[in-house]
């Protein structure tokens, strides 16, 4: 059951001109959050902008006693709302509703987990990676960006015991090319008898490629889709994605039926972008 918290900004760490990590005091949300869930944040009071924006829960913050105290968001500036979040200073308050949506289900050993992140699609994987590590699942993050300077928080994952495999489109750091090509390369090296579960989040073309790779190698794959959302609660039907339902195409609400979907259910050829 989601709650709406008038959350104080604990800190706002600018990672670059575009990226920042906003830490919010929100114990009630932190206590309930599961990997891959999201929150709806109102970037400013008043009607400009009017609607809330969806953000993955990047970290669950804990107090000294280990109790959940807040969450952080990995925010990428792309428009009005994300700019307002980027500009937030500690002490400011933002309304934050969550946790929302269908979470990732972490797999157990002996299955291995491969998380595939493109750009800000990194956001849901820290909590997932920690959950996987906690249950002893061997976990790798494949993380791609355009250039080396657009790779963030890698150490944060390494500290969580997650193997990290980087790619950049220009080859500036890690493997050169798309992250999904790297995944495919690794799958080539992996005996088909060894269970590997893929999780992907990033730009739609990347997720589509990940889904295709997963399908052709017969690997299960969960994707976290990014649709424009009006309410986050199933009320408005704005956030739909096309899925196959008994071989019939059907629109499902990504805010409550997702954002995490089994990649094989998505009708990729019909997905926006």
């Amino acid at each position, binding site marked *: 059951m989601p709650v*709406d918290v008038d959350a104080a900004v604990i800190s706002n760490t600018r990672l670059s001109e575009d990226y920042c990590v906003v830490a919010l005091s929100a114990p009630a949300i932190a206590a309930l959050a599961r990997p891959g869930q999201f929150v709806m944040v109102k970037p400013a009071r008043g009607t400009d902008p*009017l609607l809330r924006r969806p953000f993955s829960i990047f970290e669950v913050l804990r107090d000294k006693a280990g109790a959940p105290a807040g969450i952080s968001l990995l925010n990428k500036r792309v428009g009005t709302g994300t700019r307002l979040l980027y500009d937030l200073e500690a002490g400011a308050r933002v309304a934050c509703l969550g946790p929302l949506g269908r979470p990732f289900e972490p797999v157990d050993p002996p299955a291995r987990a491969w998380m595939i992140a493109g750009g800000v699609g990194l956001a849901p994987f820290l909590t997932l990676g920690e959950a996987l590590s906690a249950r002893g699942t061997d976990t790798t993050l494949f993380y791609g960006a355009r250039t080396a300077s657009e790779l963030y928080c890698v150490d944060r994952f390494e500290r969580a015991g997650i193997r990290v495999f980087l790619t950049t489109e220009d080859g500036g750091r890690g493997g050169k090319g798309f992250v999904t090509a790297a995944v495919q390369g690794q799958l080539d090296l992996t005996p088909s008898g060894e269970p590997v579960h893929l999780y992907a989040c990033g730009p739609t073309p990347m997720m589509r490629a990940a889904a295709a790779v997963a399908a052709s190698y017969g690997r299960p794959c969960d994707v976290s889709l990014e649709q424009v959302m009006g309410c986050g609660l199933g009320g408005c039907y704005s956030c739909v994605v096309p899925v196959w339902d008994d071989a019939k195409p059907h629109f499902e609400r990504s805010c409550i039926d997702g954002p995490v979907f089994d990649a094989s259910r998505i009708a990729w050829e019909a997905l926006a972008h």
Partner: protein
Amino acid sequence: MDLSVSIGSLRLANPLIAASGCFGYGVEYADIVDLSSLGAVAVKGLFLAEREGHPPPRIVETPSGMLNAIGLQGIGVRRFVAEKLPELRERRAVVFVNICGSTIDEYGEIARVLSDHEGVAAIELNISCPNIKEGGITFGCSLTGTHAVVSAVRKVTRLPVIPKLTPNVTDVASFARAAEEAGADAVSLVNTFLAMAIDVHTRRPRLSNIVGGLSGPAIRPIAVRMVYECRQVVRLPIIGIGGIASAEDVLEFMIAGATAVQVGTASFVDPFIWTKLLDGLRTYMARHGIDRLADVTGTIDTSKREQAWISS
């Protein structure tokens, strides 16, 4: 304090109704909103058959508003009564079913199905959805069409019949009158304003459906005016809709002439808005010594046009 209001024979605990299309089938909100605490819940517009609606993008934000072109995705009235109505009854929600037809017969058919089931408090006739080609707004933009749909549904049901009017007309009050003459129990107004937004870099519409409906605070002043105009012309209860986001907004519509109101877009922004609105209404009543909220309806004071001293 008495917050109850009457729509014909129907008594609502308070004037707040969740607007159709903005609250799913109600059941989505059952965990976070006590459905029985609302005046009523208007569920998402239903056709007879299931519909998939328009492809995304289905919404886009605009200044103090949003456009939507959902295209009435829905499970159809039969699945609704089978799958959703029982839970709504269990939660003691007062259910307004918003219905849409491609033909007059379809409206009648849906109304008949609904009348056969316990738990429907009223039928709201969506003759004003700007996002679909067939039916709906075709009736809502013609006086004879409006009259015909209302009459047809009136004939087949004893449930209160509440046509929902479109603001995309020259004289909304004449539509309210047509609805009244055809036997409606109330009118809801307004539905969304037909509008569009274009991405100037791709030069393509921002909605897959090209045009969509504008809702939210941006439209409130127009909607209030329309309620006020209808109030002059009909005696029917009016359900005011459009951009309501605070108790003051509720009161503005009531003072203009609304008996009850619906809240849509603002409940996206704040799904917990309902208790805040009720609190705000109680505060206002206390401050102004009002016992029965219903007494506020239509009390706009236009008597003294101050300083009408310099003639215009």
